């Protein structure tokens, strides 16, 4: 039976803002790899629920992919997977709606599996970096780094201590809960108090949204200061990033979200400008951990290029 469907293709400005905010909220808490996985799964689920004519499918996919490519900030691993999806789909559009939907789901599932495998390898390499007696500084770790730390304790029985730099509770909640559950020794301190504990630490782990063509790392807000402090104190900084996080664009093209809010306190009125993410110079990073393993300063150039 033919179904008449009202066309509702365009992603309007309001929907786009909602979508971007959702991406930011997830990225803040889970990291960019995890949000990329969630987005791919959400794409698959949405295709399954979608009711439309076969002729509209191309426009609907293009609109959504276009919105995904322009999130603030850019979720680079997701963009690297969505672009080939779009390219592969060009030859798959037919008059048979279900067949086209099945094909799209098959391609997206393959992308999701690829991402999962890369993240899985990073976790494997990361676990090997943790030694007994380590004291590791962790700042807004992604869900993958969190999983890696928990695994090092639960599966490999390693004895190490984590200094968690607490900023917004929502961002640190998952890390504290997961590590507490894994019985990892924890010290939770405000990020501005790190100087009191810096001498205890021998490693720092960070994640990234992207690593840009001009050798900058787009990271969680607050990371820049902490990395600088660690660098000054000669504490090696380990950056966990799959090769999918390397962007072909410069840091100024990463669309870091800027918010300006009018504030009024006592009799002072001012506009507070905040950014969703920090930018850290890749020079301050000592080791890069990708799906290929640990890379020193000299090897990083190959990835950036």
């Amino acid at each position, binding site marked *: 039976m033919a179904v008449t*469907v*009202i*066309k*509702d*293709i365009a*992603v309007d400005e*309001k*929907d*786009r803002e*909602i*979508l971007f905010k*959702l*991406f930011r*909220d*997830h990225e803040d*808490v*889970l990291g960019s790899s995890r949000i990329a996985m*969630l*987005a791919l*799964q*959400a*794409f698959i*689920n*949405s*295709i399954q*629920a*979608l*009711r*439309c004519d076969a002729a509209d499918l191309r426009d*609907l*996919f293009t*609109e*959504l992919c276009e*919105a995904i490519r322009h999130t603030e900030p850019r979720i680079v691993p997701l963009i690297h997977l969505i672009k080939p999806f779009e390219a592969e789909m060009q030859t798959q559009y037919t008059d048979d709606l279900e067949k086209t939907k099945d094909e799209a789901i098959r391609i997206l599932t393959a992308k999701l599996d690829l991402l999962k495998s890369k993240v899985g390898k990073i976790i494997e390499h990361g676990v090997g970096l943790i030694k007994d007696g380590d004291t590791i500084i962790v700042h807004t770790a992604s869900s993958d780094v969190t999983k890696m730390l928990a695994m090092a304790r639960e599966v490999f029985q390693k004895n190490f201590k984590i200094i968690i730099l607490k900023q917004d509770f929502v961002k640190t*909640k*998952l890390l504290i*809960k997961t590590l507490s*559950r894994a019985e990892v020794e924890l010290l939770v301190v405000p990020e501005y108090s790190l100087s009191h504990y810096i001498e205890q630490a021998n490693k720092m782990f960070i994640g990234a949204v992207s690593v840009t063509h001009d050798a900058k790392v787009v990271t969680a807000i607050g990371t820049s200061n902490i990395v600088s402090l660690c660098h000054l104190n000669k504490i090696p900084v380990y950056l966990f990033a799959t090769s999918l996080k390397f962007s072909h664009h410069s840091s100024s093209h990463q669309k870091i979200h800027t918010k300006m809010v009018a504030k009024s306190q006592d009799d002072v009125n001012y506009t507070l400008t905040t950014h969703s993410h920090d930018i850290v110079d890749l020079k301050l990073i000592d080791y890069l951990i990708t799906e290929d393993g640990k890379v020193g300063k000299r090897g990083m150039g190959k990835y950036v290029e």
Partner: protein
Amino acid sequence: MEGVFIPIVVFLIVYAAITFELVNKAVAALLGVMVLLALHIIDEHTAIEFIDFETIMLLLGMMMIVAILRKSGFFTIVSVKIAELTQGSPLKILVLFSVVTAGLSACLDNVTTVLIVIPIIIELTAGMGLDPKVYVISQAVISNIGGTATLIGDPPNIIIGSKVGLTFNQFIINLAVPVVFAFVAALFYIWFTNKNKFKPIDTNLAKLFSVQLLLEKIRFNYLSIRIDKIFLTKSLACLGLAITLFVTQTITKLSPGVVAVLVAMILLVITKVDVEHMLEEIEWSTLLFFTGLFILVGVLEAKGVIEWIAHNVFLRIGDNPYIIVLVVLWVSGIASGFLDNIPFTITMIPVVRLMLEANPIPNNILWWALSLGACLGGNLTMIGASANIVSVGMAKRFNQNISFLEFMKSSAVISVITLLIASAYLTVFLWLSL
């Protein structure tokens, strides 16, 4: 009627203080009692006799059961699962959440239900770019309608059930039908007046995609607590036991108050919760408020004031049973919309008793009229029921300001529609009973 002037004045001042929220309700009621004691209008032994301990026990027991159930994460799990089931469809959000709200309000209490449901429904609808206000108002209204169906669903029913001796089954058997009709009518009205807000989203890929991410965010925010399955199972088993004992009241001869406190004590023992911490969750001020009101109304009854009101106001309406039933229903409905329905119900119980003595109406129909009026009338205004006030307060916390008139615009019409349904039901019921 000797020495009635002071009790009447004290009662009216207390009533005004409660209605206009001049002081805390419990303080107002107990201060009134203290004035009567200090002026030797009554002595403390007589005052204690006026307290209906059956009602207090039922309230205390249910508060304990609800507090432990809340701790188990049961309400949150149900709400998040419902959010997932809706898959972002605006109409499904309205219908499925309303079914859950009505069901939970009938089995537990309205305020707890809206406290859990409202944040999730706001997060879901605001996150999708929908107007959360329609959903907030709908859930408040539906919780009051759902609570009308059972003895434990709404405070007026608890009071009527305990003081009159009506069973849990009698409430369900006699009130379920009008409540189901009222529920369907309310949902239809909300849908009909907001049709353009309930358009399906399954033709919009970007919206479907956003909803998937949003549901993941809700799962993360609300379900990231580790659910203790054993604790949850014990809590649900005890809730099941309580409901079974309520239903089999005529066989076990256990009053609802005894059942509620008994099950609460069993729960405390088997779940090993921190009793001190749990006791902090009990709304002691509500229990004290009830206690004070029972004494104040008891004094008025003892002094013959209630009898005077019954004879000179309600018994003047004649002896036509249809008119008597409808007057009780609509007076209760309108009064409950503007006054607190708890003191109103406590005051009306002796009045209805006297009305029944003068004009016996079969099958407890006058009590059902009082119950339907007091519960459904709460939807007339924002201040008509605790669930309304709590829902609007929760919405404000999420930057969704709902004004008194905005609330009333939807809720008052629904209240009138549901009272009309109740009128039709009671008329037919009475016609069949005579």
